């Protein structure tokens, strides 16, 4: 193993952290990610069905129910698995070849659903381990980079603590720090806010928003709140297909005129629940004279999924 070269082809100078590199950002006018016709089948189950997607700088949310194919799509984009069909370009490189895949991995940060911490490692040691996996062999420069990313996620003070002694929120921040090593141009985050309490989730949102200021972030989540607060764009995936691709406001708009209030349960509603005021909030085609409500992102998301034919219907 040799000292990790910078993207410009020169060896990283000792004692300096990896700087933001122009080649880690997409060329002007080209998307960070361009995927076309991605398909993948596991044991006769279609995980991805002709998924085409373009991602540009900023935070894009990926919403979908369990089994929709979100994690599979993220793994394909993170080069963990190869699709059966389709073309993919990430930051101008094609991960289909060995050389292209390595080039993509050098410009990619990935936070998997289960980051898998090595027991007994401290926060510093874990991020250091990931930096080594990213071909950082020069000790001083690597440690400087580790300190930089741990400071970026606010964990400088606990860097010497064993990971098993950290809270869930801190562990997720350690994983995010590992994903930020080398200042990647494309950040893939798979449900990073799961299991976090509201305070930790807000702190994590701040970090994601910060990370998305100058790079492309794809955020898979079950939380429509995360999307509403962070994302300039949202993609809804169901049964391995993209069912919606637009802004959060446009997703909410999908439910315009299809959310209404009632004093009793509405059997005809696609979904309905009693709210804190005692009224029912209903989604679907409202009856005549119904009192319409302002749609939310969650309403739009639920109606996008509710409008899908089920497997039995198909």
């Amino acid at each position, binding site marked *: 193993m040799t000292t990790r070269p910078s993207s410009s082809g020169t060896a990283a100078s*000792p004692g*300096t952290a990896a700087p933001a590199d122009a080649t880690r950002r997409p060329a002007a006018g080209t998307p960070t990610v361009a995927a076309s016709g991605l398909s993948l089948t596991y044991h006769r189950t279609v995980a991805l069905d002709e998924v085409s997607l373009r991602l540009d700088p900023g935070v894009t949310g990926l919403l979908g129910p369990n089994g929709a194919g979100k994690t599979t799509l993220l793994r394909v984009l993170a080069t963990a698995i190869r699709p059966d069909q389709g073309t993919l370009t990430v930051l101008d490189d094609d991960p289909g070849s060995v050389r292209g895949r390595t080039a993509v991995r050098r410009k*990619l940060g990935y936070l998997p659903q289960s980051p898998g911490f090595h027991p*007994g490692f401290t926060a510093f040691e874990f991020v250091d381990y990931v930096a080594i996996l990213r071909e950082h062999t020069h000790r001083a420069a690597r440690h400087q980079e580790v300190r930089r990313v741990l400071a970026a996620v606010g964990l400088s003070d606990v860097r010497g603590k064993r990971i098993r002694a950290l809270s869930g929120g801190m562990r997720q921040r350690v994983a995010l720090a590992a994903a930020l090593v080398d200042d990647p141009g494309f950040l893939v985050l798979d449900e990073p806010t799961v299991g976090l309490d509201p305070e930790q989730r807000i702190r994590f949102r701040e970090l994601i928003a910060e990370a998305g200021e100058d790079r492309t972030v794809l955020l898979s989540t079950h939380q429509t709140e995360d999307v509403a607060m962070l994302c300039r764009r949202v993609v809804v995936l169901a049964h391995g297909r993209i069912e919606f691709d637009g802004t959060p406001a446009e997703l909410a708009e999908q439910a315009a005129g299809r959310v209404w209030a009632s004093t009793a349960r509405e059997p005809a509603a696609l979904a309905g629940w009693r709210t804190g005021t005692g009224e029912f909030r209903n989604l679907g085609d409202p009856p005549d004279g119904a009192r319409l409500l302002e749609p939310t992102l969650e309403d739009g998301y639920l109606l996008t999924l509710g409008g899908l034919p089920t497997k039995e219907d198909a």
Partner: protein
Amino acid sequence: MTSAKPWHVSEEDLRAYAAGDLPPPRLWSAETHLAGCPHCRSVLAEHADPRELADGWARLDAELDAPSPGLAERLLLRARVPDHIARLLAAAPVLRWSWFASVLFVLALAVLVGRTTTPLLLLSTAPLLPLAGMVLSFGPGLDPAYELTVTAPLHTFRLLLVRASAVLASTLPTGVLASLAMPSFATVTAGWLLPALALTTLGLALMPRLGPVLAPGLVSAGWLLSLLLGWLLSHGPPFPYTAVGQLTTAGTGLLAGVALVAARHHFETARHLTPSFRFAARRLL
């Protein structure tokens, strides 16, 4: 009584010190003085090469910040293993005491049985230990950070080889010691080395095709079956421990090595390393 007049190292000497040209005894005097004089240190910093100074601070930072590594990592560093390789190995289960204790326990039991009744337990288990170590040190479900590993720029196959060396380094010497503890069977019991290498290589070569569970499982089962059949059919040493058996094992190991190198790129993505038995069975059929 008068207090000593404060003095400072001359600029000329500081310049020579920064360049590494200051001769003793002025060098010793300057070094002693610099340790206690902030003024001279700041003047020295002006004369020192800024890049070297920055490198020095970075090295100092790195040393101060570096967490104290665990025992296994310290031993590796003492053995002059580069620190990044030591960290890659420290993340492998084979370098944990639980694994090492398990190896020692199995070998001790095999030696005990071998000295009292039959060496078959040692002959059958010793060659499987490196394979078991490889399975434990790499693969989905076993390496907690596997998904991060497989998406990192460092080639997974390279990591596999690094860890394979650690597995062999931790299991082969203990196996040799176990062999030496059986004086009446020393020649035969030393014959497990070739099968150990061949089985490990074969298990790894089949991994991209069959997955990290079925591949070593089948190899282990095949090995044990061949020993059992040999034991049932003849009363001599088991077939792999005969001269012909050793040659056959060496040939199998070589072929498996070629297949492993040919399949190296399949280790770079996760799909063919899924731990699912059903998937592996489908691949097999």
